[in-house]
């Protein structure tokens, strides 16, 4: 996908209540993604704030994953996929030719729908990215720190050499979060991280997301509206590839501006 964008503007800004201009952490402008001729995301616009949880909701097939994966250019690996418009990280268009996608993915980590730890030990899963990036500090400390952040340390501290595949689904997903966190990214993208988990594991991950936002900007895709309402500060509603409405979660869930949002939230479709 090579819709090269010039003009690395820093004008994608948002006025906060005090009138001081702060920059959105991730933002998109008239951003579209095509699979061949099919437009899976249509001219989306949104601005994600730093250290907040932003949820993307919508019925399945509406393009949530596609939009999320566009944020760290994971769609590059999908044959036939291409992007159009502007997707900015810290004001810089990540689809411009001078953006290194590998470097970008180190800043914007990702957690997938199905837990996908490597078939290696727990320790080596977490240490994988830091080692790859030539981390200079003490890796053991970093592993412990990351596992603590992912609320997994207490459960696995005595068996770090065990294969990650021997963990339960919920533990595996937290390990994947720890693995992403160990890379010390700024943004964490999560694509339905709880959909393969049972309710208890789900609530642990939700608590975790709550804590993670103190350090990271979290963008969470979910088809579960209650989850979005529980954990997010901002919510984007997508429908058939369009980003219908974006705003503070409270407002979206109590007084949506768009009729389609209203219909979805009240369960008339989806």
């Amino acid at each position, binding site marked *: 996908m090579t819709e090269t964008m010039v003009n690395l503007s820093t004008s994608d800004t948002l006025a906060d209540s005090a009138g001081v201009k702060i920059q959105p952490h991730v933002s998109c402008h008239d951003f579209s993604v095509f699979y061949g001729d099919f437009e899976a995301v249509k001219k989306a616009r949104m601005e994600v704030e730093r250290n907040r949880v932003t949820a993307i909701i919508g019925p399945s097939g509406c393009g949530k994953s596609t939009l999320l994966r566009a944020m760290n250019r*994971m769609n590059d690996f999908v044959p036939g996929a291409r992007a159009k418009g502007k997707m900015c990280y810290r004001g810089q268009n990540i689809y411009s030719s001078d953006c290194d996608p590998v470097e970008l993915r180190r800043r914007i980590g990702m957690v997938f729908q199905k837990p*996908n730890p*490597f078939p290696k030990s727990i320790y080596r899963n977490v240490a994988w990215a830091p080692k*790859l990036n030539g981390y200079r500090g003490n890796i053991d400390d970093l592993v412990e720190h990351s596992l603590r952040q992912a609320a997994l340390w207490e459960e696995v501290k005595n068996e770090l050499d065990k294969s990650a595949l021997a963990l339960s689904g919920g533990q595996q997903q937290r390990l994947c979060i720890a693995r992403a966190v160990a*890379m010390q990214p700024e943004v964490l993208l999560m694509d339905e991280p709880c959909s393969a988990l049972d309710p208890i594991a789900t609530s642990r991950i939700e608590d975790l997301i709550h804590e993670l936002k103190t350090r990271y900007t979290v963008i969470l895709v979910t088809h579960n509206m209650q989850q979005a309402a529980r954990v997010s500060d901002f919510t984007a509603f997508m429908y058939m590839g369009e980003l219908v409405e974006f705003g503070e979660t409270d407002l979206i869930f109590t007084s949506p501006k768009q009729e389609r949002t209203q219909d979805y939230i009240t369960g008339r479709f989806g």
Partner: protein
Amino acid sequence: MNLASRRMMDRSFTVLGILSILVMAGALLCLLGPIVIRGVNAFVFRATVEHRQMLAEKYGVGDREAVKRELAQAEQHRTKIYRMISAYEASLEDESYAMRREMGGELDELKDRLRDLLGPFPGDPDPILMREQYGETRWDRALVVKDEVIFREEYDYSDPSAMGVLVHVPRADTFEGTSLAPLFPYLENHLSDILRPRWTFYWRFFTTESYDAHFFGGIWPEILGTFYLTVGAILFAVPFGVISAIYLVEYANPKNPLVALIRTCISTLAGVPSIVFGLFGLAFFINELHVSESKSVLAGSLTLAVLILPLVIRAAEEAIRAVPKTYKEAALSLGAGRWRTICTVILPAAMPGVLTGIVISMGRAAGETAPIIFTAAVSAGGVVALGETLSQPTPALPWNIYNICSEHEAVNEIRHVQYGMVFTLVFLVLLLNSTAIWLRARIAKRLRGA
């Protein structure tokens, strides 16, 4: 379809499945049983005192004094036989010329058979061929030769409409009434006193070179040659094969017609008869590239490598393709480049499959005969040192099995060597295959985290 008939179907299919497995297992047993029994016979057999004498004299192994004592004990029986013969020879002097001529011929034949059995007579000049310096070293062969001493083979043409019928005529009939007549029952009764058979585990069969065209010694050069050729083939084929597989799975655009062509070529290569590879190896590696003056381990390895390349590529391709896409996604999302992803995540996860493919190709390379006929194998030869592999040909198990049974001047006398080689080759290949299974299970277990 109702329940009853569905059950019927299920049951009959189960029976069919079990039956076919039984048939296969039976076939395997029929095949492996004789190989194992006869093969083991090459190195576990009843060795005669001649064998021990040969070992002591040629290899300097065994207890010389004990062998001497044994020979001395056998001596009394042997002397009796030799005395009977010289007595008969002396009595012949008094016979008529015609009689002397006729019986003299019979006697010479008898003496030759006895030499096969017991070694040279006292007073004989030292034979040049090692096989003539000793009597039968194996008890099973000795029994066969004993029959040749006792019976003369003749063709009976009395029925003119049929071809000659082979009959065994007792030599005792020929020498009836002479001083030689008691020789035959004596030999029959005292053969084990003369040759003193004893069960032996002759491990030197695997560790020594052959003497006198496999009449004595072992098959170490063949084993080593097979090892060189196999390892050489793997060394060449695996890097190429794995890299090709990575390219085909991870980099090549499947819609590209060139890639489709390459795939077709690989499939075709896998189906080419191995003799064609042999000729190709001769024409290309030796005549065209001049990797060596003539046949060499190097040329053979290269030829075998081309032969197993498609196998390696296919196995590696399948293994790489079987690695879950999610691993790759995870690695890429953690800021790894494509190459890093392949080296640190995809290849390790594909390792069990790749290794299995490699070991199975090793088995294939070890057993192939045709590709090495023109490129690497010689029928007689000693141990090739590692440094000589670039220029020297080598004996190798598959080729020498063929060679012994088709071109050796005395096949029947060294059948056991041939079976020993077959056994060794089958054992090596089975060993490689079970290593593959074991490795695969082990790595898979480690990956699963048990």
